[in-house]
């Protein structure tokens, strides 16, 4: 019996397409002797689909056609198992499309990666790969994440956080407040988006206004912090759980603009997505990064240690990527942001650390099973403590509660 792994990807997120690439690439690299993979596509309206074409990247060029030929599905608990059932079953079809033993969410961005899909899967008592609800949620909210890291003594840049309402009510005051604390140039980010969407740098008040308004089109809250002039960005991946962690080699994304934009990260070279996946054994952002990063051994060790600490502080599980900023002027390292489901699952970093993609996925699945068992254990003891005690007052107490 092979282990049935349901890979979830897509979702109502600006990083929808990136997620499709990451997921299908991961599926390509899963050990098929061990796993029976079931791709489950989450469309932009959050409807889930299964079918023969769902695992084929070429079919996504004509999405309408693909969805027409696929089956809309939903999850249901059947006995001890989690079943994928057809939402609109035709009379001659079986209700159950398939079963899954493990869920593997490979989604990026708001509305999915932020704990949403994790919470959804948790309701089915099924082991799922990667971070739990809380660490996923914290990882997505840049401000909350910064606060927690700061509280735990990890180096982060000071920032200001504003809501759309505050800006609309009194934009002058907001800008004043920023200018009082953070000198130009500043960087403006939507609070909860990864992959550099909506991020821009402002050198003066006019640009700041523009940057803020641009960022507000992606989120209700924004974050402003100092833009480091002599900046070097370094990323490092961590794999493990609360007990054991491993750190990867560091990479250095090369900026074409002042910061690594969405264009650089995923669309650089002007290649089309389909074309890129052909060579998916290599990283999709090959060509725009240096691996390993050009940093001293000392800095690398510092970064790797910080990465481990961030992983633990946020209570992560599975594989995450942490982006660091180095102020080369001051020779200072800051934690920039956390990706709880990194693009490509950071496999290129792990390949450089002598963990191949297939083993990486094995390890992730193993970790998901481990967490699931540990959680079930906790629930079990809770039950015995409270509900099964000998009640001297008989059932009277229960009646009173009612």
């Amino acid at each position, binding site marked *: *019996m*092979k*282990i*049935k792994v349901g890979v979830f990807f897509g979702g109502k997120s600006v990083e929808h397409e990136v997620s499709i690439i990451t997921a299908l690439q991961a599926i390509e690299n899963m050990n098929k002797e061990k796993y029976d993979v079931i791709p489950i596509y989450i469309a932009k309206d959050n409807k889930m689909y299964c079918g023969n074409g769902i695992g084929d990247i070429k079919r996504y060029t004509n999405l309408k056609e693909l969805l027409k030929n696929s089956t809309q599905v939903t999850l249901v608990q059947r*006995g*001890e*198992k989690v079943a994928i059932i057809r939402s609109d079953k035709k009379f001659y079809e079986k209700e159950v499309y398939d079963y899954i*033993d*493990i869920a593997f969410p490979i989604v990026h961005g708001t509305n999915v990666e932020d704990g949403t899909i994790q919470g959804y899967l948790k309701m089915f008592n099924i*082991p799922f790969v990667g971070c739990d609800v809380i660490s996923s949620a914290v990882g997505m909210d840049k401000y909350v994440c910064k606060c927690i890291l700061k509280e735990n003594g990890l180096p982060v840049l000071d920032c200001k956080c504003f809501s759309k309402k505050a800006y609309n009510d009194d934009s002058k005051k907001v800008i004043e407040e920023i200018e009082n604390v953070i000198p130009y140039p500043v960087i403006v980010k939507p609070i909860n988006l990864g992959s550099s969407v909506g991020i821009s740098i402002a050198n003066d008040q006019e640009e700041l206004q523009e940057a803020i308004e641009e960022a507000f089109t992606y989120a209700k809250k924004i974050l402003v912090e100092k833009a480091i002039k002599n900046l070097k960005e370094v990323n490092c991946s961590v794999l493990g759980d609360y007990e054991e962690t491993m750190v990867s080699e560091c990479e250095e994304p090369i900026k074409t603009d002042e910061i690594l934009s969405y264009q650089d990260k995923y669309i650089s070279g002007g290649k089309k997505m389909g074309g890129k996946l052909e060579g998916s054994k290599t990283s999709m952002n090959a060509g725009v990064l240096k691996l390993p990063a050009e940093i001293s051994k000392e800095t690398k060790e510092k970064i790797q240690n910080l990465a481990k600490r961030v992983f633990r502080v946020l209570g992560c599980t599975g594989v995450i990527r942490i982006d660091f900023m180095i102020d080369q002027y001051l020779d200072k390292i800051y934690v920039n942001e956390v990706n709880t489901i990194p693009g490509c699952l950071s496999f290129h970093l792990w390949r450089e650390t002598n963990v191949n993609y297939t083993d990486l996925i094995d390890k992730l699945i193993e970790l998901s*099973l481990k967490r699931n*068992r*540990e959680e079930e*254990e906790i629930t079990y*003891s809770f039950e*015995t403590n409270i509900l*099964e*005690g*000998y009640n*001297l007052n*008989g059932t009277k107490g229960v009646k009173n509660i009612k």
Partner: protein
Amino acid sequence: MKSIIVIEYSIHLILLLVFYMHMFQLNSYFLKKHIHWMKNNTKKMVIQLGFILISLMLLCVNHMISMISVIILLALSIIYNMPKQKAKVPFQLTNRVKRMFLTEGILIGMVIWLGGIDTYLYIKLGILNIFSSILCMIANTINMPIEYFGQQRYIKQAKKILNEMPDLLVIGVTGSYGKTSVKNFLYKILSTKYEVLKTPKNFNTTMGVVKTIREKLKPTHQVFICEMGATKPGDIKEICGIVKPKMGIITSIGPQHLESFKTIENIIKAKFELADSVKENHGVMFLNGNDTNIANMIKENLDMKVVSYGVENKKFIYNAYDLKSSSKGLTFKIQDENKEEIALKTKLIGKHNVMNITAAMAIGNYLGIPIKNMKTSIREIQSVEHRLQLIPHGNLTIIDDSYNANPVSSKLALDTLAEFEGIKIIVTPGLIELGEEERKYNFEFGQYITEVCDYIFLVGEDHSKEVLEGIHSRKFNKRKIFVVHTPEEAVKKANKYAVKNKVTVLLENDLPDNYNV
């Protein structure tokens, strides 16, 4: 008028059929056990059926008054036979039961058809009432081939599932007592490293194991801990034939289910069916060296890989020593794989639990988990429900040991109680299912109680008679012995002593409904 009688008879019949089916279920659908039970409960049956007999006789007199008295009589009987209190082990409407009811229905239908529906309808129904107690047995016999083929199909399915998982490690757990505890402790320890499935609760029959495999085994599982129970020779062999264990553990051997095993030698042989199977699969057996019956078997060359475990004996490969127990739990020491001494702590009570924990540690260690890493698991181990389960309640502490007591475990429970401070009270209905020696064991149990307890609450009179004789054979203040109807009643009374003093109540054995009627 007649139609009222017909309706009453029908209701009565349904009540009786359900009742006897419930008892038949509690007697594990064993004809022998059920007949034995019927013999022991003739009094109850006479009352149940007496009304029917009288009503049938009255019906012979075709008179208005006799008719009315029949109606009243039957109404009373229906009220009497209504299920009164909540059953301890509730009736489960399984598919097997449904099939038996169907067969019963067909049989009843046939009887009613006989010579036309209208002729003597109420007489027929009355007679059916009288035979209701054996109807379930007849239905069971008729259904036997269907049940057999159904079971064979399930067994085949289970075997197929196991065949598809060649890497799954099956660990068989058996023993007269301690097997459920060892199973749970082992599950806890192995789960730190492996994906483990265990047979739930006390599902330890062939069909229980098969059900677990069919419904719970997932391709993600790496280890399957299979509890194997034996109520007769060959039971364990049958389970082993399906699951093919590569590892086995025998926790203890003692007088249990003597009604079907007859001698202790037969029990030893039955438990070692597991070792035979593990040997065939070139596996390894874990054996409790503290148990005399098992130790004797180790001495005879078993011609296979054996790992011994136990307490306070350096010869054992896994030996727990320096046992200390208090009302808060147990502490003990053990040497790990590097001969380093490791001190361990658990919330469990009862020194024999150290033995059970050591058993689980031995297997866990054998499977690559360092003893050092087991500290947390052992500290967190919960007692199995109703097996020396400690339930603190302010001044009153309850030790719930109500599950299937036997001479050895009840003595251990009393030893544990002896370690508690304050007033010690036992609540027990006596021991059961011990065959011809039941009387002797209950007598000795009574004697031992007097050495430990300050107050004695006997539940029900039927089975506690011999216990009482044992108590009286020693000097014990008769004013401190009470006979009550339910354990709850006893606990309520015991609670009065807890106003001023620390009181510990041991609930020893709680008879299932088929012994309580």
